[in-house]
């Protein structure tokens, strides 16, 4: 398995995730992004902060190994 193929593998999935697409790799799993809106959070010291939105990568395993 060449490094170049691994790199292309990662890039292919990454590009689809950036476009908010769900990628299914048979035998491995499904990659998906989930958006988290901005929200307020109280820190331990009592301060309240507004956390920015973010996109999180979710992976659902279908590994058949």
């Amino acid at each position, binding site marked *: *398995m060449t*490094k*170049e*193929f*691994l*790199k*292309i*593998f*990662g*890039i*292919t*999935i*990454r590009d*689809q*995730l*950036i*476009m*908010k*697409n*769900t*990628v*299914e*790799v*048979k*035998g*491995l*799993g499904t*990659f*998906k*992004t*989930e*958006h*988290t*809106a901005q*929200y*307020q*959070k*109280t820190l331990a*010291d*009592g*301060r*309240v*902060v*507004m*956390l*920015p*939105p*973010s*996109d999180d*990568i*979710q*992976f*659902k*395993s279908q*590994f058949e*190994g």
Partner: protein
Amino acid sequence: MLIDHEKFIALLADNAGLSVEEAEKRLSELLSEMADAFSEDNAYEVEGFGIFSKLGQAVHFMPSKELETEINYKYAGMSPIELPGFEQGEKPLREAEAEEEPDSFDSESDPDEEAAAAPAEEDTADDVFTEFLQMQKEEDAEEEEEQAGGTESDTPQEPSGFDETFAGLIDDDFEQDEIDAAGRGHDLTDSGREEAEETPMTDDPFSIFESSGTEDEKTAGADAEEVFSDSPEAGAEENSQPAEGDERPHSSDEPPGPEEWGIDAHKEDEEDNEAAFTGLFSDSETAGTEKQAEKKGTEDDFIPVVQNVSAKAARQTDTPGKEEKPKKAAKKDEVNPVVSVILYMILIILITGIMGYVLVHFNMIDISRFTKSEASVAQTVQPQAPQTVAEQSQQPAETPEPVLDETAGSNAEPQTPGEPADEPESAAQPEPAAGPADFGLTGAVNAAANQGYTIVLFHLSNKNSAEREFETLNNNGLRALLKEIPSAKYGVLYRVSIGQFRTAADAAIAAGENKNLITGEYSITKIN
């Protein structure tokens, strides 16, 4: 959009420059390598992408920092912003309200758990509702002032989605019939009154803040008190306030005062400020609030208002993070025009300076006012000489013009007056005239005028050349002067100049007027 396995293989083959079969084969090799790694309890890392690890039966994927950064490139630069205005111990409006998509992987979220967690937000909901009502009250007061004198509307208004809007904020213990009663509010029909079991709503929104003398109002106030007030005595305080019934408590000119609203927030001696607002928490009030809410629009308008409460609180105090951004943008906007103006001014100054230099250089403008400086510069350029040269016998009027001193050694010798001129003056050179100083560009050389200035045309090292030029100028009718100037660098220089002028300015003027005679560069210097 779902990129299934086949599409993914096609993309992979396209990116790698392989055929579909080859890409499929490589992928299967990758999966087999992963399986080998997992069998040895190792994780499998794809550089720049993430790490796959197997825990139990499931494979977990941990994205790399690079991948996370690229996925969140839209939010790059965003950082948590501290919200001022929340003292320690105060709770924010909303905590960790992340959106949940219906097909989320983490489907283990239990709706029952969420419902169970709802009561825990009671205190938060109370605060939100309190502030919302206060805002509504303020807006009502403003509208009432604007609409002063207007006719009262007797049409009953249908309840809005009050219950649905604030369902999340209202305690679950709040009974449905109470919600309905609050929502019905303005139903003035008898049936509506019976069902509402509370004081019939009037068109006067502020009447809801007044505790009426009727028993229904008191009952309604007590019911609301159970839900919203912290102290059971607050309701009693509200009910003790004088009521004015359905009529408007105030004239159109005067807004209702706090006393009439049944709240004590304005009283500073109140220890428990929370109790001061309990007068607001009556069913009639909520119905009136709902009425105002209807005016606001659809259900969606409520949510932003609630959210804006915190934003409003944040705006009241300086929020460094949020205010910095608009301030920065404003500063940028302010800076850009200022910078452009400054650049334009510099450009104009440069153009003006260049034009002025060109005009002066090509003698297009009169620089007579500046000739003194030029003369002084010319004098400094003159090789040492004039001071070492004979204190020439430039005695006015009587001495002959010692224009040229033939003997080199005689440079230091002052020519005494009366001495015959030994200089091999050219025949063409007229004898210096004696008498009063006669200045000018033409005519005979006047020894008395040798205290003035002259226009220097040449500094030549060759004596013959200098004499030739001297003769030429004399033949042209000009008052030419030829003078030997010792120079440390060149030895001896022969200065050919024309004219005798009283001041350097006169010389400059003459030079400007006779451009046809004076070609090339020239300088103005003192004759002696």
